[in-house]
């Protein structure tokens, strides 16, 4: 999109420790720790096991989608329809619940709708060769529109009682089911992206799709699978969110797509494709969750928090650019 396509190529001239110290992830760790310390000083209620456990709900559902979104963005595409898929999947589950379906069926329906929506996106993008940003703006309206068609101005409630486990249950005393799911998915996506040949294909496509194509990677098929993944993860997030809220409205998860993209970019995934790590996304999820929670404890309205997230996003991205520029100027000054 922009002309100067800065890629985060690791600096081979320095040693491993030096590289780690200067990496994006260590910068994020510093930010996480700083926010954690500020929070614990700002509110006496912060350092409480139950509170901290509740804080995870601020990001677990979004982070589930962010993992899949990270892969999509690394491959050079984007999916803006994820929040609308949540709405549609949630609506479908609510509709099914009206007929007295049990929890296993509801979960299957949630995941199934997610996969279908992802397949539809994937077909339009890879089958017809359309730009993903535009396609998913269109399907975003379409999917959410369908929820409005079904629901109108009503809401679906009346989910079976054991369905509540996904959003309200605890696995180990204070650790919620959602957080465990988040951790498992983080590991799975980390392995998929960093340790398998599929992950290497994703990077290759993001760096140069044409070169990837001629080195024998089935670009279309990989991208289709990636959109299937964002669809499935949106379905999974829809199950958790619906279960946590206990109701479905067509405006559910409104505006999440941009928060998820923010999370991914903050996590160090290059929006132009080709670079980034899952651990960065995990850290970014923690940052956004802690900021939301900390501001909440201090009674700061959500909208003010979003200013902070916006500044953080631009600031963190601008920092390396400013740093190299200042360093270069400094070095030039030394040479003279």
């Amino acid at each position, binding site marked *: *999109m922009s*002309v100067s396509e800065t890629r985060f190529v690791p600096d081979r001239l320095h040693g491993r420790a030096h590289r780690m110290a200067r990496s994006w992830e260590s910068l994020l760790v510093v930010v996480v720790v700083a926010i954690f310390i500020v929070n614990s000083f700002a509110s006496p209620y912060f350092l409480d096991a139950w509170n901290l456990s509740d804080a995870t709900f601020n990001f677990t559902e979004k982070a589930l989608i962010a993992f899949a979104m990270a892969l999509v963005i690394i491959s050079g595409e*984007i999916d803006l329809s994820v929040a609308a898929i949540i709405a549609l999947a949630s609506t479908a589950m609510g509709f099914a619940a009206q007929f007295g379906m049990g929890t296993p069926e509801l979960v299957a329906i949630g995941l199934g709708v997610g996969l279908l929506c992802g397949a539809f996106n994937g077909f339009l993008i890879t089958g017809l060769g359309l*730009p993903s940003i535009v396609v998913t703006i269109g399907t*975003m*309206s*379409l999917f959410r529109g369908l929820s409005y068609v079904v629901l109108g101005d009503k809401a679906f409630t009346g989910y079976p009682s054991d369905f509540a486990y996904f959003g309200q249950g605890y696995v180990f005393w204070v650790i919620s089911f959602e957080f465990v799911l988040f951790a498992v998915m983080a590991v799975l996506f980390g392995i998929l992206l960093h340790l398998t040949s599929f992950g290497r294909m994703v990077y290759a496509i993001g760096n140069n799709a044409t070169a990837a194509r001629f080195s024998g990677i*089935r670009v279309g098929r990989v991208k289709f699978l990636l959109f299937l993944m964002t669809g499935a993860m949106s379905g999974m997030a829809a199950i958790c969110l619906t279960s946590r809220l206990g109701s479905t409205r067509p405006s559910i998860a409104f505006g999440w797509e941009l928060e998820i993209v923010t999370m991914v970019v903050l996590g160090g995934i290059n929006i132009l494709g080709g670079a980034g790590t899952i651990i960065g996304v995990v850290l970014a999820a923690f940052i956004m969750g802690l900021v939301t929670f900390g501001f909440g404890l201090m009674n700061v309205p959500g909208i003010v928090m979003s200013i902070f997230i916006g500044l953080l996003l*631009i600031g963190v991205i601008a920092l390396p650019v400013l740093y190299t520029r200042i360093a270069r100027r400094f070095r030039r000054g030394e040479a003279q």
Partner: protein
Amino acid sequence: MMARIFKHREALLFVAILMLVGAIELRFPGFVAPRNLVSIYNDTAILIILALGQAAVILSRGIDLSIAANLALSGTIAALLNVAFPDLPVIFLLVAAVISGSVLGAINGLLVWRLSIPPIVVTLGTMTIYRGTIFLLTGGAWVNAHEMTDAFKAVPRAVFLGIPVLAWFSLAVIVVMMAVLVMTRLGRAFYAVGGNPHAAVYTGISVGRTHFFAYLVAGALAGLAGYLWTARYAVAYVDIANGFELDVVAACVIGGISIAGGAGTAIGAVLGALFLGIIKNALPVIDVSPFWQMAISGTVIIIAVAVNARSSRVKGRVILKKAEHAL
């Protein structure tokens, strides 16, 4: 002859709009009455203004997701000034909104130009910052109709030669933007930078500066739209025009402006906005529930993109036929 016309995307879209209007007229006679058409155009005027600003940005291979937040913040600033200084003539408030919009656009432009942050990241960040700033300015309170002066609210509704002033504003913007894109050096720079930034550098165009001016133009138009919006609907609060940025991008895309930059026309953006506007206005008339609106506009966007992409697919030179087929 017909084939030539259909190669022009704008002509195709124009025919589609005529057919759409004709179909609605069949179902609901009286839709084409001049008065009704004027009111539909008037309802679409703000979308047209924003789409023209967005067109400049997309042509130069950027995207402005903060355009609706900019509208909201600039409109709120104008409304708050009006509340604080009721004696200030409206023209000052209008200028204030445009200046505020330009400054916000310039911030986007500077971040893209000077720090080379990708446009989508910059405007994603500034979108939330601008909306948050509205909250800081108003404390979350609404600026209501009874707090605004009558003069402030009257401008967009005033009728001149049978057409509301709001519509006149958008007509003026259309003329200016068409002239800018077709006749000025800046307009050509938008196309050149979007078409091939590296080639643009060799022809002596500063890519960063062109981006900056594109965001400046989009910002100024968003500021103008901000005043018009708050004055027309006589309300200003944090969430006005929430999510409108995607409608604006959709209007550009339907109008045949390539999201990859470098291709498209001002008239295309206008027609794209009109197409969306007519659908939104016609649904209640032909007795379709408003809940269908989002689903229908989503379908329209997808179809429009598919049609556009079919007609403009750039075929690269195939050197390995077998590899090409394997994909």
